[in-house]
């Protein structure tokens, strides 16, 4: 890790990171408010009425809903709004970290310093993980703050919330590592960003289709999102295997980048 590069990366990202974290915190805060205000009552009505199957459909996709506090936390973490905001910061940063500098021509100015490519990569990987941790902390922090303010915090187990945060960080750490691996492999931002967004969007589509359409259930194991099930964690059945799978994907992405980046030729920008 290079402290100089890390501080510079932080300084360059802090404004965007602040806005993204603020938006995520507000998003997270609103969900317990919705749950406490009318989600609870509507949930009770649905469970007793003819629309129980609607709850069942909701519960299939990572359990995101506003009819239980667990569903509210899950919704806060897996809703496309939250995923898009976290992806902007984590996946967007990682995809542009090397390929973007290479495209602008500033990478050669940086690598002309006594800075090894391996150190550059590990520093950017560390920054990617930090952004994943902070953005997910903003959502979870917003949710917890909302739950406390609206008097529903007692329905949550702190350890389960912490495990949710950890699993979410692992998920976006993996997506960030894939984006960074793509970034070190290309001279242009376009292909790196395309691969990074492709993995994220296709992975989300696989999980979405697989959960809602039984015939597409075979797609789910191929999606990183399959290995983050907040509803299950909040129900007290955390699966350490999910973290192991994410860890294996992360290791593969890091191994690719560690092999390719130091061996790549960085020809003059054209």
């Amino acid at each position: 890790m290079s402290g100089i590069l890390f501080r510079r990366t932080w300084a360059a990202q802090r404004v965007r990171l602040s806005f993204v974290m603020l938006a995520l915190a507000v998003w997270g805060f609103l969900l317990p408010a919705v749950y406490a205000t009318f989600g609870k009552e509507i949930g009770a009505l649905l469970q007793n009425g003819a629309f129980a199957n609607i709850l069942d459909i909701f519960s299939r996709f990572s359990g995101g809903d506003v009819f239980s506090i667990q569903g509210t936390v899950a919704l806060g973490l897996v809703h496309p709004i939250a995923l898009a905001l976290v992806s902007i910061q984590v996946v967007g940063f990682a995809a542009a970290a090397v390929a973007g500098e290479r495209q602008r021509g500033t990478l050669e100015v940086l690598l002309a310093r006594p800075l090894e490519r391996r150190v550059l990569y590990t520093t950017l990987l560390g920054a990617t993980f930090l952004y994943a941790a902070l953005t997910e902390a903003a959502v979870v922090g917003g949710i917890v703050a909302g739950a406390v303010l609206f008097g529903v915090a007692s329905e949550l187990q702190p350890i389960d919330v912490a495990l949710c945060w950890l699993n979410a960080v692992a998920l976006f750490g993996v997506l960030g590592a894939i984006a960074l691996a793509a970034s070190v492999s290309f001279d242009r931002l376009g292909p790196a960003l395309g691969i990074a967004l492709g993995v994220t969007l296709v992975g989300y589509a696989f999980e979405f289709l697989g959960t809602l359409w039984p015939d597409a259930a075979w797609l789910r194991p191929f999606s990183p999102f399959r290995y983050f099930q907040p509803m299950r964690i909040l129900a007290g059945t955390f699966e350490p295997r999910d973290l192991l799978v994410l860890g294996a994907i992360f290791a593969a992405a890091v191994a690719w980048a560690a092999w390719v980046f130091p061996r790549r030729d960085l020809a003059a920008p054209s």
Partner: protein
Amino acid sequence: MPDRGTRVPFRRVDAIATQGLTKHFGLRRRWPGWSAGPAPTRALDDLTIAVQAGEIFGFLGPNGAGKSTAIRLFLGFLHPTAGRAQVLGLDVATAGAAVRGRIGYLPGGIALYDGLTGTQLLDYLGAFYARPPVLRASLVDRLELSGRDLARPIRDYSRGMRQKIGIVQALQHDPELAILDEPSEGLDPLMQRAFYAILDERKAAGRTVFFSSHVLSEVERVCDRVAIIRAGRLVALESVAALLARRRRHVEARLDAPAPALVAALAALPGVSAFEARDDRLAFGLDGDVAPLLRLLERAPLADLTIEPARLEDAFLELYDEPAG
């Protein structure tokens, strides 16, 4: 020209030394059932040079000749296809970061972090070195970058100012070796002069400058030795003085009175070529020493005499006119 295939041990005194350094891009990979693809590009072929410590070394060639490829190999941005390179006694393939810690580099058409101010950029780029930026104040002063300029974001800089800040970032930590790619690009004549003075000081301080350019007049002005490459291959490696000494000078003379004996003697003088005598005017090319010519003209009825110095540009063009070997 170095003998191709000769492999001699590197000398410790060389700031840069290469042996058979070769870089081909797009090497064909042979997979069963796959077509071979396009032929590889020979960006650099068997380059063997030695840049001595303390000299200003010019590296000449037109665009696409392989200058930037060679520089990128020295910096470890590219991996050689064959051959090896040492910079400041260290192998660039195994000690890239250590090498870069002792050099300063100005890329051609430098790209900078537009969101930073000049001071922030210099602080950031200088912080990676173990050496403090001892020369920054002097360079900033010489290149007329005011405190107000340095407080502005780089996105507001003109091309010339970007080049100046590029020069400062390359030299501010007093590197043992400066690798400068087209360093005077974008500088006005006054700043070019200031820059040449900076280079002279680097040399006086025992530092080495590796200078890539296609502005031949400036190479002639500042460099001790030059290497000329064409299509990735070295075609000349010698001192500027030696290169110029071998070049043809152009001589023009105007006579006050007819002097047929003098004209005949001049036409027969060794080294004289393309001799033309029209009325009172004489014009010819002269290779080699000028002393015999001056002795002959000593008692001639001369009204005017012009001996144009040999120029590096002529040498360069001559080497480029020769068929590729």
